[in-house]
């Protein structure tokens, strides 16, 4: 047997106790829905049902917003920053203590590899709470006036690609600034948000400060359109983001949107090739490509195209696709049947439009939602796979001849969330980064996140910043 076929090394799922059904988390406790409608959350790697979850109705949203308002008026709003920070520090520590449990649940519900949930998601989740805990008593020194005030009740709607991390990006700064929140997790990945609700109970967070209302699009709409909310924060598709912007227009609600992307990862001929290959792979195959800032377009300089693509294919052949709970898995399951259908559809379009498709030999499991890491070469700016967000493990390769051409192609997209530059020449990094219309530009690395660093988009990738000092602004008046 080949050594590379590492024997199975599964993480035990017994560490997490998944209940058969969950209520909504409103006013500090789990409650049943007003009208009793439910839906199922499944494990995308096996299609097994994990738990039954409530589909929140407008009446449930009403109750949650009312609880948040009460908590804002009576407890959390008036509380001193120093006291709020104590709660946030406590939550951060509990997340660290229960990180294995949370990582396993995240992997089960989302399909992402346990290695990424364990080594990327959970450390960042805790770091976000620690970071914003530190800001809670220093807001008057953040550069937003001498006495910045919270906005009130924040309605937050998050996607399924990083369920707990997106929760942290939303809840930590909101709470640090003195707001209360009603958060709706994505319908395919509600479970870690509900476990987070248990952590809020464990931390003795005052009832109503954090409310979790599960559900699908209609629940989300009821939440963002609710007249009782002061602030809407959304991460997800540009299409839904547009609808939310329309519904919020003309109201007093403040809005931040973090939407799609079609990032260019630009490899110059003087790049550190081995690390660039790693970065491209990490840029698009990390989290199955379910990353809004994924480097889904590779722009490689023509003079190194052939050798670079050989190296990239060799590296892709090493990707281990399979059981997300196996500690050696690199690429897990696609999050849902619907997402898989979209990835398949766009890939088929790529072939129809004349691009060449390549995937390494890899055996995909029979059950569950799977898509092999895929590379398209011979892609031009006119192809749909170069323009539309696929949100899957599919990389489109384009070439360029000069730095100007690279910048032009990189910017030639309605999106502007992120970009990557690979070159050993420092002056080129600065010159190119300066001209890229993207909220985040990584140089000689990709998909690196830190709570101290703001994140957000240009153009149709949204507005507002999350993370860092800048992230406070969205929650302060």
């Amino acid at each position: 047997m080949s050594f590379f076929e590492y024997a199975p090394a599964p993480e035990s799922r017994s560490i997490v106790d998944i209940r058969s059904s969950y209520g909504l988390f409103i006013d500090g406790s789990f409650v049943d829905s007003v009208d009793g409608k439910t839906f199922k959350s499944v494990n995308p790697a096996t299609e097994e049902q994990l738990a039954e979850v409530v589909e929140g109705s407008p009446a449930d949203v009403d109750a949650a917003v009312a609880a948040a308002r009460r908590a804002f008026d009576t407890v959390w709003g008036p509380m001193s920053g120093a006291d709020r920070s104590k709660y946030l520090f406590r939550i951060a520590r509990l997340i660290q203590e229960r990180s294995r449990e949370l990582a396993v649940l995240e992997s089960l519900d989302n399909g992402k590899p346990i290695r990424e949930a364990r080594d990327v998601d959970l450390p960042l989740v805790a770091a976000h709470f620690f970071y914003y805990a530190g800001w809670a008593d220093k807001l008057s020194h953040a550069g937003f006036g001498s006495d910045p005030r919270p906005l009130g009740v924040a309605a937050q709607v998050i996607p399924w690609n990083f369920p707990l991390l997106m929760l942290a990006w939303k809840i930590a700064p909101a709470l640090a600034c003195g707001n209360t929140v009603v958060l709706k997790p994505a319908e395919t990945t509600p479970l870690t948000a509900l476990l987070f609700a248990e952590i809020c109970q464990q931390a003795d967070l005052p009832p109503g400060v954090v409310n979790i209302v599960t559900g699908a699009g209609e629940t989300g709409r009821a939440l963002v359109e609710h007249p009782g909310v002061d602030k809407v924060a959304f991460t997800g598709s540009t299409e839904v983001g547009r609808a939310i912007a329309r519904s919020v227009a003309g109201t007093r609600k403040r809005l931040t949107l973090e939407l799609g992307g079609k990032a260019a990862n630009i490899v110059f001929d003087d790049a550190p090739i081995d690390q660039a290959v790693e970065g491209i792979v990490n840029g698009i195959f990390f989290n199955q490509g379910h990353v809004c800032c994924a480097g889904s377009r590779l722009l490689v300089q023509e003079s190194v195209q052939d050798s670079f693509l050989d190296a990239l294919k060799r590296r892709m052949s090493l990707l281990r696709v399979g059981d997300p709970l196996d500690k050696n898995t690199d690429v897990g399951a696609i999050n849902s049947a619907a997402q898989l259908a979209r990835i398949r559809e766009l890939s088929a379009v790529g072939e129809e439009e004349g691009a060449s498709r390549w995937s390494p030999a890899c055996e995909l499991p029979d059950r569950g939602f799977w898509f092999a890491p895929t590379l398209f070469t011979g892609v031009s700016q006119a192809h749909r796979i170069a323009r539309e967000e696929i949100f899957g493990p599919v990389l489109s390769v384009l070439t360029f001849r000069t730095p100007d051409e690279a910048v032009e192609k990189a910017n030639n997209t309605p999106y502007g969330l992120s970009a990557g530059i690979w070159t050993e020449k420092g002056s080129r990094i600065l010159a190119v980064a300066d001209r890229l219309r993207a909220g985040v530009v990584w140089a000689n690395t990709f998909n690196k996140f830190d709570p101290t660093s703001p994140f957000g988009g240009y153009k149709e990738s949204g507005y507002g910043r999350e993370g860092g000092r800048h992230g406070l602004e969205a929650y302060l008046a």
Partner: protein
Amino acid sequence: MTAVIQPTDLRAYLHGLPGVDKVGAEQRAAMLGTRSIKTTSKRAALDLAIRMVDLTTLEGADTPGKVRALCAKARHPGGDAPAVAAVCVYPSMVPVAAEALRGSGIHVASVATAFPSGQAPLPIKLADTRAAVRDGADEIDMVINRGAFLSGRYDQVFEEIVAVKEACGEAHLKVILETGELATYDNVRRASWLAMLAGGDFIKTSTGKVQPAATPAVTLVMLEAVRDFRAATGRIVGVKPAGGIRTAKDAIKYLVLVAETAGETWLDPDLFRFGASTLLNDLLLQRTKMATGRYSGPDYVTLD
């Protein structure tokens, strides 16, 4: 197919190699360190690692008795464990090792060329090498001239390696880069190519006398070099991390690095070695644990 690359301008050639991004290289090595090697894979890895050990003693206090004891251990590490790849000693101890290992198939490796500093005139380095080969060494671990390398005299380093290779005759040549003194990964990549272009059969990280010795990231860069050198020339060069690898866990991480960087071709004692002394006992302890389900303890492996 063996294409010979003979650069007319070594500096231009070596400085034309792609750079190494330090952060990225270290991250990749660290990520591969998280691979979880269990059950059957672990058993296979432990036995393979034992077969890759160059059991080493390089002390001023080495005596024929010490070397004989080490050779006995090399032949019979303990239980039904396989023999190691080689015993590595100073030139003066080569006759003793050659005698003790006769007929075992275990290689006799000798450091040479004014090990560990390499600070001696070339004729002395060559005489050192010839003496070791004459006395029975079939593998020579030479050190490169780091002073010449760091001052940019690549031709001198190259020519010394060529000369030592010639002095080796049939013996295999391992070229020690002493990566701890080269300091940057760019230098490690250049020195690796230099040693391979000059005819080295193996590239080896360290003497074990300088800190840091072998690290996963340095070994990663060297594994990339042998992989790319094979693609360019068809010739396969081995890799030997040496110094600081003490636990079975570390050794297995190196095997993962090999498998996922150079490829499984290199998972062979002819192409990958561990320069180590205390590593063997931990491999044996873990091997027993895999077989019996229990840890035995330090008194159940031999101390030589």
